[in-house]
């Protein structure tokens, strides 16, 4: 299990320490919650309201359920929707992972993880395999999710039709009537203009063959992971006050044309640090003369592979020392 050290001496998948400073059997660590807050910050009535909305969302896959979004201690646009969903489902035995564009170590991921550690006292981890709840901004982890895990997406714009139809009254009617012609028009226009669909993220999907859904700004590359995933997928949009869900083992199909099928695009090379050829890559500019690296966006995935001995073209680069 994790918690071991790699050949290079770096530590993987660590978290905060327990009350006694000990490490649990799974390697995740916890601290006592801050008694000034209710468990996971939100009051129980709010959590009940959220859970009712989530049940409705699970019952109608892909359908946007309005909810009374609460004031959170951070501004709209910073993940308040995802946090409210996480707060509603978190239990003291859960192990929480938080990622932002695939990384556990960006400011937002660190802050949100610390927030729940402090208000709920739950164990936290950077390991996808160990987590029971994963809150994510704009990526799905590379390591396949399993039954029993829940992934919570932060969603800026829950309405996939919004850019094409500004009227809320109209979009609600369109969903009710499954009147989705305009969505395919958008793809048609893309192909007419560029010869192919250029939509690279927040690529619309048809859920359970009924509702068109915005998967949040995950790269199109991640869309196939949603299809028949064993995990429960929950989506929260705090500013727009909507949540939606995809229950486990539900069909999620990216919209496409027969003669222009969906293509999960990624950079046509391998990770320069761990050599992975099947993970989504970030392009990192490393100097002023345009030098760049392509690195796995999923930091846990990359670190785990390096710990297992995989090496990329630029293995040992200074980037890895920053961890």
């Amino acid at each position, binding site marked *: 299990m994790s918690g071991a050290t790699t050949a290079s001496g770096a530590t993987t998948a660590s978290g905060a320490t327990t009350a006694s400073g000990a490490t649990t059997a799974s390697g995740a660590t916890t601290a006592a919650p801050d008694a000034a807050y209710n468990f996971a910050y939100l009051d129980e009535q709010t959590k009940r309201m959220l859970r009712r909305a989530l049940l409705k969302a699970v019952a109608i896959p892909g359908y946007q359920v309005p909810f009374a979004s609460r004031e959170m201690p951070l501004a709209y646009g910073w993940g308040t929707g995802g946090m409210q969903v996480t707060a509603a489902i978190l239990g003291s035995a859960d192990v929480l992972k938080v990622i932002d564009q695939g990384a556990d170590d960006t400011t937002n991921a660190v802050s949100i993880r610390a927030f729940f550690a402090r208000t709920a006292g739950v164990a936290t981890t950077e390991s996808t395999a160990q987590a029971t709840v994963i809150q994510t901004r704009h990526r799905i982890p590379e390591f396949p999710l399993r039954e029993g895990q829940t992934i919570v997406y932060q969603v800026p714009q829950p309405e996939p039709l919004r850019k094409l139809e500004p009227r809320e009254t109209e979009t609600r009617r369109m969903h009710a009537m499954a*009147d989705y012609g305009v969505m395919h028009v958008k793809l*048609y226009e893309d192909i007419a203009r560029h010869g192919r669909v250029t939509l690279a993220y927040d690529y619309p999907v048809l859920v359970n063959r009924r509702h068109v859904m915005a998967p949040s700004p995950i790269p199109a590359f991640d869309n196939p992971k949603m299809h028949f995933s064993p995990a429960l997928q929950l989506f929260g949009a705090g500013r727009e006050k909507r949540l939606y869900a995809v229950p486990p083992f539900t069909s999620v199909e990216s919209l496409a044309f027969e003669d222009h099928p969906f293509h999960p695009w990624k950079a046509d090379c391998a990770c320069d640090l761990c050599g992975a050829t099947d993970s989504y890559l970030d392009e990192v500019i490393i100097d002023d003369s345009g030098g760049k690296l392509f690195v796995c966006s999923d930091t846990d995935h990359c670190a785990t592979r390096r710990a297992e001995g995989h090496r990329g073209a630029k293995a040992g680069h200074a980037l890895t020392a920053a961890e």
Partner: protein
Amino acid sequence: MLTDAPLLEAKTVSLRFGRIAALDEVSIQVWPGEVLAVVGESGSGKTTLLRVLHGDLSPDAGQVLYAGRDIHAMAAPDRKWLARNEWGFVHQNPRDGLRMAVSAGGNIGERLMAAGARHWGNIRAAAIEWLARVEIPEDRIDDPPRKFSGGMQQRLQIARVLVMGPRIVFMDEPTGGLDVSVQARLLDLIRRLTHELGLASVIVTHDLAVARLLADRTVVMQQGRVVEQGLTDQVLDDPHHAYTQLLVSSVLQA
């Protein structure tokens, strides 16, 4: 042959807006393949009648039957399906019937896509074919209608409406606001397409010349009531009702 049922029928349809009787026991029939003009001045109720026939407005009394089915009694999704697949509506202002930011090809293809068409090449081919039928040059297929003249926008609207092969088309003053020469071109197009496609059509117009040119039968409305109806040339050449006689005598001769 003449015992076939009407495709669309309004039976004593009435509708009030507050104290005003917008429609007062209006009964009309439209048979497959025929063009019916509804003429009258502003306030006659002709546009209200069109909206009731198309299902946008519900009458207070009476029924609208399409192929024998009461369109206001059916569930909204069923009516919506008919509106998308068997009916067409051409608005007076093409901006009301088009997506101005979507290309001409996208406008025509949208209905096909909404109905489940998923082959990009075929959708584009259908759009090209329809642009040709409404005399819009093929090289405009990727231009949005906000770059078109009014007449071309109206022709694009007609293509968008006809691409699904509706059985009946409703037109609200289709040539209103267009220059005379542009009108002539549009009317000719409507005339030819309705005949070629065997479409039934209900055309609301205040312009008797449009009725004369396009319609087999004409209904004259005044203050929410049908005051006269019959073959177009008979209604215009041998008007019986005082109001019809007034309308006919008011037309300026060029």
